[in-house]
């Protein structure tokens, strides 16, 4: 399992991996649905949405700390083989379905914005093959590509948000309580599942240098993603307001289209589509990699590479199943329940078991771990 667990990944790799998996939903319709629910206080939901996964990650790091081995061994020691199979299989399904959903949404939005005359299947296959290639090259290639792209993506989004200053209507952020503070808290708690990607760090723990690396990477990645999300939500609300904000299919693309400083500085969305596509590819590749990694661990495969094409075909087929975009968005909203199980139920169960076993002194820990 050497190519699965290089043990060389550092903080930067971790940041890039998590950022790449959790960030792309900002580009998709999730925000429009949430602004309709919460109103001007959506930013608070985004803050909660970022903090909860961080707590969960720290809980999982605690679980992992006393036990040497991959995530399967950890789960096996805590809840038995059947429990470990159940949990890891569920996580694998979560990551693969997340990958398939993002693949479908990005393909739809590519057709809508950049390549309206291309066949839908061609775009899906194109994304799936590219994501497959990234996965095939391994976790290091994936995280380092993501790390190279990350600053440019953040700068591009930041630039769009700044160029829209003439369109800001600060009063759109009021009434401050929006549709209610409790509603925002609920959304934040319920939506935390969209950040299930942060657990990739725990699943791939043996590939990282140590637990400190993982914690640090999670902290940075979620902080960056959180800051960007909150800034984005604030600007989006100021520019579009509640009613129009809830209408948009592609929030960030619509913001980029609005940039008009003068005759010479406008129509920048064409440049931005490139950043957006790269983001989508990395998210699909990241989700595909983690989903397949969990299967490889379960099946005790020595390497991931032979199942990458199968995985890519699987998510491409899954992505092509929904008949229309409306159905995809419906599935996206329903899938959050599954992600919530992944972010709350399993980590809490593992944490309680680890704590209980440690307390009773039944857990054998080696000094080297």
């Amino acid at each position, binding site marked *: 399992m050497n190519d699965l667990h290089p043990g060389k990944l550092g903080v930067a790799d971790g940041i890039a991996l998590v950022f790449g998996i959790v960030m792309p939903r900002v580009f998709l319709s999730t925000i429009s649905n949430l602004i309709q629910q919460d109103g001007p206080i959506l930013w608070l939901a985004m803050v909660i949405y970022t903090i909860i996964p961080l707590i969960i990650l720290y809980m999982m790091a605690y679980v992992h700390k006393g036990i040497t081995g991959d995530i399967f061994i950890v789960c096996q020691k805590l809840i038995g083989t059947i429990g470990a199979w159940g949990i890891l299989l569920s996580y694998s399904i979560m990551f693969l379905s997340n990958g398939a959903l993002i693949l479908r949404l990005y393909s739809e939005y590519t057709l809508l914005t950049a*390549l309206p005359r*291309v066949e839908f299947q*061609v775009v899906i296959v*194109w994304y799936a093959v590219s994501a497959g290639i990234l996965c095939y090259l391994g976790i290091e290639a994936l995280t380092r590509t993501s790390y190279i792209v990350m600053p440019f993506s953040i700068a591009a989004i930041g630039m769009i948000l700044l160029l829209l200053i003439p369109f800001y*209507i600060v009063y*759109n952020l009021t*009434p401050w309580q929006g*549709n209610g503070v409790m509603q925002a808290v609920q959304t934040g708690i319920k939506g935390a599942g969209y950040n299930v990607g942060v657990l990739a760090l725990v699943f791939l723990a043996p590939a990282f240098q140590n637990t400190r690396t993982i914690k640090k990477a999670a902290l940075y990645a979620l902080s960056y993603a959180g800051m960007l999300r909150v800034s984005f939500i604030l600007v989006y609300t100021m520019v579009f307001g509640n009613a129009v904000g809830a209408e948009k299919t592609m929030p960030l693309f*619509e913001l980029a*289209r609005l940039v008009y400083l003068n005759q010479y500085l406008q129509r920048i969305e064409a440049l931005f589509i490139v950043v957006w596509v790269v983001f989508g590819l990395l998210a699909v590749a990241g989700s595909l990699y983690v989903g397949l990694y969990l299967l490889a661990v379960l099946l005790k495969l020595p390497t991931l590479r032979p199942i990458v094409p199968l995985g890519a075909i699987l998510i491409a087929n899954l992505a092509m199943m929904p008949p229309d975009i409306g159905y995809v968005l419906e599935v996206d909203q329903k899938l959050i329940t599954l992600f919530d199980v992944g972010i709350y139920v399993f980590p809490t169960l593992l944490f309680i078991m680890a704590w209980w076993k440690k307390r009773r002194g039944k857990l054998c820990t080696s000094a080297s771990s």
Partner: protein
Amino acid sequence: MYIRLILGTMLLSMGIFLSGCNGARESEEVAYIVAIGIDKAEQEGMIKVTYQIARPNVEGNKGEGEKDTVLISNSAITIAESLNLLKATTALVPSMSHVKVLVVGQELAREGLANMWGSLKRYREYRGSMFVLVAKGTARDFLEGNKPSFNISASKYFETMLDSGVETGYYLRVSFHQFYIRLKSNSAESYATFVDISNLSGKGEIATPKVAGSKIEGYTAGGIPLQGGNPIQFAGTAIFNGDKMVGTLSTTETRMMAMLLGNFNNGFLSIEDPLLPKKFLNVNLRLGSAPNIKVALEEERPVIDIKIMLEGEITNLPSGINYEQESYLRLLEEQVNQVCHEEMANMIQHTQELKSDVIGFGYYIRPKFTNYQDYLQYPWFEKYSQAKVNITIDTKIRRTGLMIRTYPVK
């Protein structure tokens, strides 16, 4: 090794075949539409859509009297169907991605535009950055009458013309995005630039009379006394209540509106000389700071408090009175305050009569509510027409131009 070769070949092939170039069109195969005009058609329930299409080969070798655009109109039940008809009747493929302005005829605008905006906002070729104009007559006549005096393309003409609105405040540039968000907002009503064609007779038509102390009247498009040049005029503002146009603001009213929106860059004000009313003087004004607006929700009616800070520079003093001196300067500042106060009060009263809060005072009441539902339940647009308005204008003449004193003419 082989796998890398295969992967490399695949990536290269994808780059070549899937990069979108297979769907590309040469520019001479595309009809770039620079303006769209929408009017009520003669047939019941139909609209007449006029497309101003750029002729790609004209720029640079335009002959005498040759226009760089072509106008094509058709009548259809929807804009989408009209586009179908256009595609069916022109050899080139129409593209809406370069539309600069959307002109709506006044008759249609007064009937309501709700059914129209949906397709313009949803279809990806239309952009939120195109500008919205309302033509006093028909949109077709307006586009037909557009004959730029200088050798610039139609799209550049519209862009430059709308940019220069900030130089006077006599008309405002309104993007489709700005128009649309107000259409859906409970805080403000929509407005659009008002345009028309002049008969170039040199005779004007006054829309708003001058207020006490002022030397200038307000005009709306088509009414500015004009001879020569491009007959089309951008002047004033079309204001809406919901999706229906309910009236117009004149040039002087629009300037006051610009001040309240914080969009007033600068403009000359011609006023009576405070000590010699038969004489006039000119001040170049600009906003000294963002307008300070507060709205109190009193039980009976809302109270709007407005504080405007203006900064000015004297540009003409024909009377020879030494207004540059501190003691006289106060008189001049007071005169500016009085004129702007009255013009602003009249403008707000006009919008109250038309029940159209185009300034967006409704935005200022939002922080008063705890949550969004309470805010939505407050009937702001009804209350606006009853609101009491207190205006304070504070002018500071900062500079006296290139002269520090004036001697009278002998």
